[in-house]
Structure formats: C-alpha cells, structure tokens
C-alpha cells in the first residue's frame, strides 16, 4: 500500500477526500434549504475568484500558517502545543508594545523589531510550559491549556487597566504609530503600478509567512538542530544514546513554536487591526492545530492546509453574504467535515484507491 506514486498520494487522494467533505456539506446545505452547487460555487469564487477574495483568503491563511507552523514544529519533537492561542495573544502584546511607544520613522525599521518582540513574547509564553515539561515532566498539554486561560485573563487586565486610553469605551489599545503601519497588498501592488483592491487586509506579512515556511523547512530538515528534534521526536531513548539533550530539544522546540505563534500577531495586530484588541487571535491557535495535523507537520502541507482554511473562512463569509439562510455555524460545519474527511478519514479513500492502483499495476506487468 505504501508504494503509491506521489501524485496519487499527494493530489488525487486529498482531492477525493475534499470532494467527499463538500458532498456531505452539500447535504447540510440542502437541509437548510439552499442549492449546494451554488453554495460551492460561491465559496470557491468568493475566495479565489477575484483579487478581492484572494486578498482575504490569504490574509486568513497567513494567520493559520503561523499558528500551524507553531504546532507542526512542536509535533516534530512529539509535543502537542495546544497553547498557540495564548502564545499568539501574548505575541500580540509584544507587537503592540513595539508599535505603541516608539515613533517609528518607517515600517521597514519597525517590522524587524516588531517581529523580534512578537516572537520573543510568544516564546516567553511557551517557555514555562517547556521548562516544566523538560525538567519536571509536567505534561505540555495541560500546561499550555492552562496558559491559554492565563493569557486571556492577562490580556483583559492589561487592555482594560493599562493599555486602554482613559475614557475610551473599547477595551483596546490606542492606534499604533503611523510609522508602524505595514503596507497592504494594495500598497505593494501599487508600487509596481498594479491594481489591487484596497479593502482586503492582506499585507506584507504574507510574504513573511511564506518565508517562515521555507525557514522552518530548512530548520527541520536541513539543520543539525532540526535533525536532533526529529530524532528526539521519534525516539527519546535513541536521541539520548546519540548525545542529544532532551532538555535542549524541548526548550528550543517550544521556544520556536511559541515564537511562531507569537508572530501571527504581526499579521493580525500590526498588519490588520493596527491596535491591540481584546481577542486578536480568535481561535486561529486552534485552527493551527488542524492545519498542522492536516499538513502532516510539513511546512508545505501546513501552507496548503492554511490556504484551505483561508478559503473556507473567506468563502464562508461570502456564502453568508450571498445566501441569507446560511449562517456562520454552517461554515464551522463545513470546516469540521473538511478536517474529518481529509484528515482523519483519509484511509476511507486511500485503501480502495491503493487496491485499484495495485490491480492496474499488476495488469500492466
């Protein structure tokens, strides 16, 4: 079964799974009394059919790439970082501190500092769970769940009592200094004399996310540390035999993971909102888990899964707009089915396809 050609494994099977997920979703659409084919068309067109839709799709994808990579990196060391949500939130705090109190002359100067700060804050938020796991064996799943809740409390406190300008109603920080505003896709295309709609919040962070995918790929598969992380993930005893320090691996992996999650805020906080909001992550940390799992912890896979979720978010918004009967819960259901079929039920398709392929092969020989 394992010797299927790559294109079947990587293209055909996921495509069929996706198709099945949409089929079942279609039934739900029928249940609420709408035309599933039109719904499908709206989702695809609305998310990929125009520069406008694409702008939103990729904006969401950028968030999910960062949180997805964060989970993926930890998976390589066999750690389940459920704390992406909290780490991204605290990363947002790091971003905000950089963008609020320093009068940046230009975004190109602000950005590197914001990245460092976001990553540092996110990493710091994963450091205690990492340390407790490495030294005390405290299960990272528990500690990161707890740290998510602590992050929520901390953010509410800071925004309400510290960062919120006095007398302002909304529990959010002041607007960031103008010099920290990142160029949007509209601006960037403008530099090259090309048109791109103004409203999509897609911004330069998307390029950063792609770069992060590449760097993480390089890190995991080309550096000694990545090698050690993967070895540790497969077998801790063997890693110790090979002179790899579990403490170092756990710390490094979780710091990188937390840092990546923190960097999500570059997109959502610095790139989009340009102020720190009370819930700037909005579940992206959890979607990141799904993206990492579906992307098989490979940066390219994470990228594709993140775009898929971006499509569902943006396409879903269009669907809600175009089809009044469709509510936002419908979108959640579609997401669930996509995760279920492409992620957990892939053998439903792989096994029969594998058999068919083997038979065809046997005939040829």
């Amino acid at each position, binding site marked *: 079964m394992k010797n299927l050609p790559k294109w079947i494994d990587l293209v055909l099977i996921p495509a069929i799974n996706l198709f099945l997920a949409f089929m079942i979703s279609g039934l739900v659409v029928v249940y609420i009394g709408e035309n599933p084919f039109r719904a499908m068309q709206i989702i695809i067109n609305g998310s990929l059919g125009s520069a406008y839709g694409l702008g939103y799709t990729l904006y969401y994808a950028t968030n999910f790439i960062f949180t997805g990579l964060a989970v993926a990196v930890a998976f390589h060391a066999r750690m389940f970082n459920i704390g992406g949500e909290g780490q991204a939130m605290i990363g947002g705090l790091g971003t905000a501190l950089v963008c609020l109190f320093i009068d940046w002359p230009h975004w190109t100067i602000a950005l590197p500092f914001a990245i460092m700060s976001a990553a540092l804050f996110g990493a710091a938020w994963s450091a205690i769970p990492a340390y407790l796991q490495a030294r005390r064996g405290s299960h990272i799943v528990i500690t990161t769940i707890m740290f998510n809740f602590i992050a929520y409390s901390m953010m509410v406190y800071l925004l309400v009592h510290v960062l919120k300008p006095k007398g302002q109603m909304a529990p959010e920080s002041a607007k960031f200094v103008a010099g920290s505003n990142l160029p949007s896709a509209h601006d960037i295309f403008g530099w090259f004399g090309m048109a791109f709609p103004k409203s999509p919040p897609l911004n330069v962070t998307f390029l950063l996310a792609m770069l992060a995918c590449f760097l993480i790929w*390089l890190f995991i598969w080309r550096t*000694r540390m990545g090698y*050690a992380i993967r070895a540790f993930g497969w077998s801790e005893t063997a890693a110790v035999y090979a002179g790899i320090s579990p403490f170092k691996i756990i710390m490094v992996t979780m710091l990188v993971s937390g840092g990546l999650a923190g960097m999500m805020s570059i997109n959502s906080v610095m790139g989009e909102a340009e102020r720190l909001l009370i819930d700037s992550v909005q579940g992206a940390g959890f979607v990141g888990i799904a993206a990492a799992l579906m992307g098989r912890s490979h940066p390219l896979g994470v990228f594709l899964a993140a775009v898929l979720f971006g499509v569902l978010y943006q396409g879903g918004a269009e669907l809600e707009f175009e089809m009044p009967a469709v509510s936002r819960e419908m979108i959640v259901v579609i997401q669930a089915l996509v995760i279920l079929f492409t992620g957990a039920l892939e053998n439903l398709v792989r096994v029969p396809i594998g058999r068919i392929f083997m038979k065809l092969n046997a005939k040829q020989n």
Partner: protein
Amino acid sequence: MDTKVQHDSAAPMIELRGISKSFGPVQANKNINLKVSKGSIHGIVGENGAGKSTLMSILYGFYKSDSGEIYINGKQINITDSHVAIEAGIGMVHQHFKLVENFTVLENVILGMENSFLINTALNNARVLLSELASTYSLEVDPDALIEDLSVGHQQRVEILKALYRQADILILDEPTGVLTPAEADHLFNILRNLSKEGKTIILITHKLKEIMSVTDTVSVMRRGEMTATLETSKTTPQELAELMVGRSVLLRIEKDATEVGGKSLEVHNLSVMDKRGVTALKNVSFHVRKGEILGIAGVAGNGQTELLEALGGISPATGTMKIDGEEIPLHDKGSDARSRREYGVSHVPEDRQKLGLILDFFAWENIAFGYHHNDEFNKNWLLMDNRKTREIARQEMAKFDIRPPTPNNLVKNFSGGNQQKIVLARELEQNPKVLIVGQPTRGVDIGAIEFIHQKIIELRNKGVAILLVSVELDEIFSLSDRVAVLFDGKIIGERITEETNESELGLLMAGIEDGPEEQPAMESVA
C-alpha cells in the same frame, strides 16, 4: 492437561499446504508445504527475513494467508484469527513477546481466557495451575510480579505458561533463545523435551544450529520465503543446514590471529552506576582494554552489562574514572554526555538497536549520521547539514557492509533485524574509533550475518582498536575475545585469558561462584 499416546502417526499433527503471503510488494511466504508429526520437536531455520515468523503467525492466526490450507490433526481448519488457533490447541511464543508490561504475570496469563465476567476466579485458578505447572516443568515464576520487573528469561516463561494455560497441544516458539543465557536456554530445552514427551507438538525457530542439533527431531530450512528442505535432524549437520540457509558455505567459527597488543587504551577505575530504580547496578568496577585487544564481558543478563555499556557510552551518569589513552575523561558533569564520548573516540554499538541504536522512522542514510551529525563530513557549513554527501557516505558504507537492500533512501524500519544491526555497525565502525564498546552484536541475527559481523569486529581489533565486547553468548565471547571478564551482581567476579579457560569455568563464574585471589596477578602478566 492431555496426555495422549505419543507418535500417533496416522495424520500429521500440523500440515500446511501451499501457504502464500505477501505484505504489499514483499512476498514473505511462497507456496509453503510442511508436515509435523505429533509429539515431535520440529525446527525451522533460515536467514533474517526468510519468512519464518510470518509462517508461524499465519498458523497462529495473527496474519491471514493469501492462499493455502491448514490441517490440524488431519482436519482442515480455517484459522481466521488467533481465537480460532487457540481453540485448535495452538499456542505461540512470539519472537517479540506479546505481554502487557505493566500487568502482573497472572493477569497476562488469563488475558483472553478469563472464562467469566469477573476476573477473580480466573486469577485464582491460574494461580493454582501456575504452581502445578511450575512443579511439573520447573517453570517457576512469581505470579504477582509485574512483567516489566522480570528478566527476559522469565518473561518468556510467562509466554509459555500462557500457552499451557490455554491447554495448547501445539507450541510454537519463535527464536526463544535469542535473549536467553546458555543456562536459561538449557533449562528451556529441558522443558520442551518434557512437553514433547507428554505428547505436545513443538515448532522451534532459531538461528542457533547447535540448538537445532541438540533438541529437534526434524528440521526445515527456509530461504527467501520458500521452504527449501525438510530433514531429519539426526541425518544432517550444521554445515549442511548453514549452506542450505545461506546458499554458500559459512564459517561457523571465525579465524582469529594473534595480534600485537599495544598500550592501555581504555581504563576504567571504580566505576559505579545506579540503575533507574535507584539500585546500585554496577559496583566499583575496574578494568582496562589495550589497543588491538578484545575484552569480552560475559555474564547472565541483568548483572550490570546494560549499565556498564550505558555508563561508558555516556548515556547514564556514573561515578569513578574513565581514561582514554591515558587522558581522563569526565564521567559525571553535564558535558560528559554521549556526544562528548564520541568526540573522545568512543564508538558504541548498543545492546538494543531498536530502542537506542536507530531511529526506525529515519531513512538509512539519516541513521548513518546518527550521533555523529555534528561531524564535518555530514555538514555543509556551520548551519546546514549536507544530505547529499551523507547519502553518498551511506551508500558506500551500506555496500561495504553488504546491507540489503543497499538503498540509503529506505526507512530503517523496513530493514530486517540483521540488516538493521549492520547499519549500526557500519556507522560505529566507520568512525575510526579509538575504543569500541559493543553490546550483543549478533542478537537475533542469522548465521550468515553473524559471520560477517564477527569478521568486521576482528578487523577493527587488528587495526589496533580497543574493543569491549558485552555478550551473553559464550560462543561469541570465545570466538572473539582475547580476554574475558565475568560480571556478576554488578561486580567483575573474575578475569581469564580466553585461551586458558573453558565454558564450564566461566559458567561457574557466571553463577557467582568466585575464584581464588591468585587469578588476578596472572592477568597482569599478559601486559
């Protein structure tokens, strides 16, 4: 227990007709036929990956054959799962034990045969039966001990007890002695003989031809998934069997010339180690190994061998001193991990290749750099590893060590045990170590590979490397080592020049019967 008349030879107890089985592209069994008569002990030999375990697992219902028929006592039985096999009176002791580690012996014995919803009765019945069996077959084992606390020998007894508890008439043992000491193995064979006298039919898979010769009535040879011969044991020789297995003649014992031994390369003084439970597992052990010398460490498993290897390999903390070529290397502080040990020129072939020596889910080429991934040869620059070069090195080493298949782009878990062992050896031996520490280098490895591995170790010795060989196989100790030290209860209880001792003397030492103090100076005189 059923005690029918033995050798009721009307129909064979077991008959396999045309059994075939493939795993994806691998054809593990091809059209296999086999008859085993009641009350006999039948041996099966064959290289690693020949398909022995697969065939037996089919008989036991663990795998489903693609085609073929099985007759038990003349009756065709469709063995769809192990439940059917158990009903048919088949019991199996698997190569890799199928025990629940954190269960007690009793719980393991009754698992699947509890007979009633509450397990209390079954536990009590089993306790009674176990004590009966213990006295009948001298299969003693503490019924309330947890499996993880038992030695492998005792774990194996539990597997046998499981089969007997299920009233098996047919007992399949897959490489039962791979993990046993010679004494334990002898004990096992006595049990098997007793069982066969009682009319039980036994199939024994082993790589050790000596065992085949001493205990079986008939023997079959498997090669590349096929059954190539079935012979009466009394009418064949180890040489013939070896040739049938490997397809060429095999040296059953390696030729080894005397070499010039040099100065002390590895010196260990007062080495003490606590094991994971906080018990002192190694007590003030001192010894040395000279350049171009193999020091064998013999002993019954569990007497501190594992801790010795792990302490020397830098895996577990230890106290005492360790010197390489006269230079003291730190044992306990943080820097003294496995990595620095390698930098001092100590290579380590671990006892357990799957748990320690290899990352099973890495490709072969990735494993070739394992532990040495900081070395220049595997790296492009300060940041990146050089995968292409590593693959090339792997290709060369795999060819040199005759690893099959010789493809670096293959996950290690897809290699047979013998070839996995060769990958570890290729990696550790090719590092030009000053000191090589080796644990159980040929455990579970077929005779063709054993010959090869022994040759490689001797070659390294002849190049002037100091080698510490830990093995529970006395044969191996005798054929490889120049000197032998016996570990008992965490202490070195005696040392001998290999050529000046014999199995019975070592056997006494291994049992803890100490020798006189006059032996020590004799050893010094070699220097």
